[in-house]
């Protein structure tokens, strides 16, 4: 254990309780982190990790409990107080102002006098970037940056404030391995200077790699604190209360390579911001019974590729077809009609969060639930009951989707898509932010579709996921396919190089 024995922890939370209505998000949670250590916080989706740390940072107000910094109780009414107390936080959802430059984002809230010295802010950004080894362009508009770059800006923003306690809420969710390594390297050097880090993640490997101690939350309650070196199975058991199973593609039975692809994309080109193409010259085919994995750092054209395949965006050039059907420029309705199932990365935005689970489940096919001109409520309900049971959605048909946890929202989307028995499945980041149990479930469903003969295109930034599920992999870099390989022969290092734009597959 790091830190000076006997001295007070850098940050200590005592008896934090937080209720949302009758839901107890945190139940008398105690937590502390000492100088120079990384203390990881683990837990399933909805366990209360984010909530407790938002309380420490003043973004949420607790119903009970206190926050101590260096042993002294401090009143944290707002992030301003937290910042003054030396606490910095990188929130799970970005807290950046999109239309503003990186420098402006860094200057925000650091007012000293009325004048805004943007040059100084720019210099500070460059200086901080050098000091922490995080490369960013201070004049870039945040909205134009990739998600990974935005994450770097977030971290820089917290570090540039010279905080002594840094809370990182799932900071690696959008980073590639190399970036994660860089982040860890930065953290390690800062730890030596006495920084304390609270690290929230679902990725057990990372947690073990960086943490001195690990605490586990389950349903708002602190289950226990163990050493950072604790075995992954043990950590998982603490989180879910049961041992974890591995879901993997059964190595056998890949689709016959001579079969005709079901989903075929030729010379696809999609325009991005600033008129330069986001996707260029992309051609690929996915056969029935095959999972084609798309690897790449976010912001390299995956979003646009998904948008085209979802029918949300029209390509500038190229063709998309399923079987004999030309789907170039098809809209969502035509895609669905062609039995293309779509599960995009932004699941909140792809549902109607303020409508019920039951309605969301039939939203793509309302006309099938029409009875003499009106909505057939009874049929919709029966349909919902059936899917809720079949896909293990923890909700009732009348719940608003907005009130569900991330994993259950993903299951709603999954149920809506899979219940229609799609012939092609396009999926992006299907398990991002999900807990172990939900991740397992989603992956097994994808494999089941593969077994049923569907053509699956799987976009993911999680290499483990791609290697576990895909039969074949392609790598996208700056909108182009820079590598293709079968999953068996893929090796991480080579993939990492390709994703970073180094080396081209012959």
């Amino acid at each position, binding site marked *: 254990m790091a830190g000076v024995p006997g001295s007070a922890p850098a940050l200590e939370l005592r008896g934090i309780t937080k209720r949302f209505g009758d839901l107890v998000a945190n139940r008398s949670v105690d937590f502390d982190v000492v100088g120079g250590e990384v203390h990881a916080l683990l837990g399933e989706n909805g366990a209360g990790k984010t909530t407790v740390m938002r309380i420490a940072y003043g973004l949420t107000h607790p119903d009970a409990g206190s926050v101590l910094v260096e042993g002294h109780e401090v009143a944290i009414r707002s992030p301003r107080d937290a910042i003054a107390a030396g606490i910095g936080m990188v929130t799970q959802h*970005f807290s950046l102002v999109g239309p503003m430059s990186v420098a402006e984002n860094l200057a925000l809230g650091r007012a000293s006098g009325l004048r805004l010295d943007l040059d100084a802010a720019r210099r500070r950004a460059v200086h901080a970037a050098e000091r922490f080894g995080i490369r960013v362009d201070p004049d870039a508009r945040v909205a134009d940056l990739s998600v990974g770059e935005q994450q770097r800006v977030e971290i820089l923003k917290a570090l540039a404030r010279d905080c002594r306690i840094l809370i990182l809420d799932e900071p690696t969710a959008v980073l590639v391995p190399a970036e994660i390594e860089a982040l860890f390297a930065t953290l390690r050097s800062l730890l030596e200077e006495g920084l304390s880090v609270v690290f929230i993640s679902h990725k057990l490997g990372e947690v073990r790699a960086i943490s001195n101690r690990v605490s586990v939350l389950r349903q708002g309650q602190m289950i226990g604190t163990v050493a950072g070196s604790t075995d992954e199975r043990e950590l998982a058991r603490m989180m879910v209360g049961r041992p974890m199973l591995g879901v993997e593609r059964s190595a056998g039975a890949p689709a016959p390579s001579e079969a005709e692809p079901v989903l075929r994309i030729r010379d696809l080109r999609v325009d991005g911001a600033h008129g330069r193409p986001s996707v260029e010259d992309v051609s690929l085919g996915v056969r029935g019974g095959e999972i084609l994995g798309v690897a790449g750092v976010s912001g390299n054209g995956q979003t*646009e590729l998904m948008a085209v395949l979802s029918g949300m965006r029209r390509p500038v050039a190229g063709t998309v077809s399923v079987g004999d059907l030309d789907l170039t420029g098809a809209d969502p309705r035509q895609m669905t009609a062609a039995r293309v199932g779509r599960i995009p990365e*932004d699941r909140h*935005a*792809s549902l109607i969060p303020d409508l019920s689970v039951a309605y969301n489940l039939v939203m793509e096919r309302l006309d099938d639930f029409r009875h003499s*001109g*009106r909505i057939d409520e009874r049929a919709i309900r029966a349909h919902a009951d059936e899917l809720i049971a079949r896909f293990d959605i*923890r909700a009732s048909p009348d719940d608003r989707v907005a*009130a569900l946890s991330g994993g259950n929202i993903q299951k709603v989307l999954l149920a809506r898509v899979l219940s229609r028995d799609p012939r092609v499945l396009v999926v992006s980041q299907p398990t991002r*932010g999900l807990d172990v149990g939900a991740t397992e479930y989603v992956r097994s469903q994808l494999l089941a579709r593969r077994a049923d003969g569907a053509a699956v295109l799987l976009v993911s930034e999680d290499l483990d996921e791609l290697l576990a599920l895909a039969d074949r992999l392609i790598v996208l870099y700056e909108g182009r396919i820079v590598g293709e390989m079968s999953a068996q022969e893929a090796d991480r290092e080579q993939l990492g190089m390709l994703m970073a734009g180094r080396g081209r597959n012959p």
Partner: protein
Amino acid sequence: MRLSSISTRYPVSPWSTPALVLFAIAITFVITAGPILLAGANPIAAYAEFVVIPLTSQFTLLEVLVSATPILFTGAAVAIAFRAGYWNIGAEGQLLLGAIAAAGVGTTVGDLPGIVALPAMLLGGAIAGAAWALLPALLRVRFGIDEVVTTLLLNPVALLLVNGLLHGPWRDPVTGFPESPRIAASAEFPALIDRSRLHLGFVIALVVIATAWYVIARTPAGLRLRAAGLSPHGARFAGINVSRTLIVAALASGAIAGLAGVSEVAGIQHRLTSGLSPGYGYTGIVVATLGTLTMGGVVLAALFLGDLTVGASTAARSLGIPSQLGAVVQGVLLLTVVALLTLRRGNSSRPVDAGPPAGESAEHEPAPTEGAVT
């Protein structure tokens, strides 16, 4: 375990809407007592005049319904558009266009019987109102241009159109006053009750509202409209043609606002006048919001504002309070109600998304670049 907590995730506050409205009325009375005292009147008596007295005689009760009639239409019109996420601030102009059409049809139908004249007028008014709503709707879905501005700016243009007609071709040849000639007798809405001003328009308004309720709550089209309003992106993703839904909602909204114009011309004025609407279109926004965008709420809110309208003029007259107090009370009441309505959902951190119109509805627009993290 988690299931049980999910279904009651949103804390239900002890404040029901009626309790809040009553509380708002009480606060309004406290705030406006000062001005009433300044005007030398007794606040309690004034409030009785405002709210209670109109409900105590058959004559005033019917007048409350008369006052409610136009804002039943415009309230419903605005509510439908808002439900679809289309911020139609142009009900005023659409109403005027409906009135123009009603006068146009009503003065030309001549000897045709009412059974022909009335439907022709209603149809004409609805089409005219919808036509006036079309341009902003097209600009919105084609170019992503904010309909708040375009619909708002078309209101004065519609009034100028009315004035142009009344100062030009439609000026009453008999009086020379800028009013159109009278519409044919067969084109007038009959009174519902003898010797009262309550006319057919009131019933039509209720029928329109009942229909709107049915469509929104019970039909696939209504569900699509709601979905488009709640989450345009999610709706489009599910294959709903959001642009078309918006245009249809805008046209329906315009048509209903147009009917308000027909109702005023055929039921009250019997001619086109430039003063026939003292801002019914804007009041429609108030009605729709007080009614929380539901059709039942619209009915209640319109009746309540009708009550206040009748009450304000009674109070001004019998207590000698300046008539502008009515506006003060309406304004303050509106503000206290919207403020207190926010208490209904406890302190939920995810308020109803009243996001900007912008281009989300446009086909094939770029996906958002931020916030992709879960």
